[in-house]
């Protein structure tokens, strides 16, 4: 029945592409989480009246974030080709998509981290200071746990965006469902392949969103 509805779908290829999409999404989400957190915390701590208040550092980090957030992803991939070649050794395949995915998503997530950290009650940070807490203690035991639900819902949004980015990266040879939909579906006019790839991408997005929402609400004790 499914084979009648989707006559041109090569399932082996489809599952391989799904695996590639998942691989790119999960690895880039993981690295984006760490990198975005670091940049976001830096942005927060260097902003006025904060622990490391520093106009120059805040401006530089802010500028970096804004520039990379402003570049359209498809352009970013092209701009990063020399860098990718240097780092990965090739510009084809799933690993070659990772630098662009991460550099595209980390600044985006860093902004969300900043928003999450700004939502923390200033009084709680002051209380930790009044107890004699070091900055590292404040980061690990106040900033991160107190903003965790927002950090998690932020990474969920970022992960969903990354699924979309992998599809775009696919069109220039990174593999994955986007690549399959473009080469096998669009270029060979096989609508059923495009449709199946879309359905799988939707399922991935829904599952990611569901897991993200679940963890977010579990951690929120407010």
């Amino acid at each position, binding site marked *: 029945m499914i084979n009648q509805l989707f006559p041109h779908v090569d399932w082996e290829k489809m599952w391989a592409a799904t695996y590639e999409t998942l691989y790119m999404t999960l690895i880039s989400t993981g690295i984006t989480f760490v990198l975005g957190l670091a940049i976001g915390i830096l942005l927060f701590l260097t902003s006025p009246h904060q622990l490391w208040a520093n106009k120059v550092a805040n401006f530089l980090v802010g500028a970096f974030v804004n520039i990379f957030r402003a570049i359209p992803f498809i352009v970013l991939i092209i701009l990063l080709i020399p860098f990718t070649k240097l780092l990965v050794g090739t510009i084809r395949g799933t690993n070659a998509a990772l630098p662009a995915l991460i550099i595209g998503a980390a600044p985006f997530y860093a902004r969300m981290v900043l928003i999450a950290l700004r939502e923390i009650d200033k009084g709680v940070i*002051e*209380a930790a*200071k009044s*107890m*004699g807490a070091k900055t590292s203690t404040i980061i690990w035991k106040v900033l991160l746990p107190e903003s965790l639900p927002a950090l998690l819902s932020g990474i969920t949004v970022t992960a969903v965006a990354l699924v979309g980015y992998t599809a775009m990266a696919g069109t220039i040879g990174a593999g994955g469902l986007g690549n399959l939909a473009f080469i096998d579906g669009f270029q060979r006019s096989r609508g059923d392949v495009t449709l199946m790839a879309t359905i799988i991408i939707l399922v991935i997005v829904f599952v990611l969103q569901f897991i993200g929402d679940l963890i977010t609400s579990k951690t929120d*004790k407010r």
Partner: protein
Amino acid sequence: MRITLSKGVPIMIELKNISKLYSTKNGEITAVKDVNLTIQQGEIFGIIGYSGAGKSSLIRLLNGLEKPTTGAVVVNGQEISSISGNKLRAARQKISMIFQHFNLLWSRTVEENIAFPLEIAGVKKEARAKKVKELIELVGLSGREKSYPSQLSGGQKQRVGIARALANNPEVLLCDEATSALDPETTDQILDLLLDINKRLGLTIVLITHEMHVIRKICHRVAVMEVGQIVEEGEVLQVFQNPQAPITKNFVMQVSGKKEATQSITQILQNFPTGKIVKLTFIGTKSEQPIISHLIKEFDVEVNIVHGSISHTAKGPYGTLFVQIDGVESSVEKALSFLKSIEIQTEVIEHD
């Protein structure tokens, strides 16, 4: 300014010529100006003022959350205003603070919140658990160990705040409007707890507030702040009995109910144009004696109570009573001289 230190008690906190300026877009703002203050060990010292008087800045100078622009802050022999880094962090473990909005970590349970300062101090896990248990009992939160702050009432949250503040056995407890977000009944419970802690642990407490009720109930001494300066300072009873600055009189009126008294006096003066209206101020044990019944029995006068109030301060009760004394002029005079003879502050309010 009156200096009212008790002899032989060590000094815990000293502020010397403190000024604190903030630079803003609209120029410099003086939050604290030329403040000199000495607080003794084991004392409950209150600082009262309206919002914007500089009390928030002042209390934050005591644990180095703010640095003075000029002057020195010395707490327990250590100059807080000139240390930083590890030294300041170590000092802060002995100068703890509670807050108006409690400032608990919502992501931690009651016991985890109380354990937080112990984690900062590097206390081992087992010792931490033991101390947390003690503190939970001390502040009366047994059974709520695993609750999150969001499941607690305001009073319970402040109890967690107090337990957390006591975790590292501090020498000084700073209370930043600690009862201002609580209802009157809960306020009294928290104040009783603070009084109990002060007596039991000999802790020096510095509190800032805008409620005279708080000062009256637990403070030994009080400083009144207005636009960054201390305008009056002294023993609480003394300040209540004989406020000097206009702002202090206003604060005292908050609790003595004098505003209503003034109204009823005007009415009484209209209704009873005869006799004398007398304001009696009782301090200490005198307020517990049956003076009025004595007055009626001994002298041939009628006594009409216009208004009365009694307040309990940390250093004994304090009361005011407005009465109309009517009768033959000579009897009234005799009654008045009797009142004067028993060391009760008497003030005759004239008909006009």
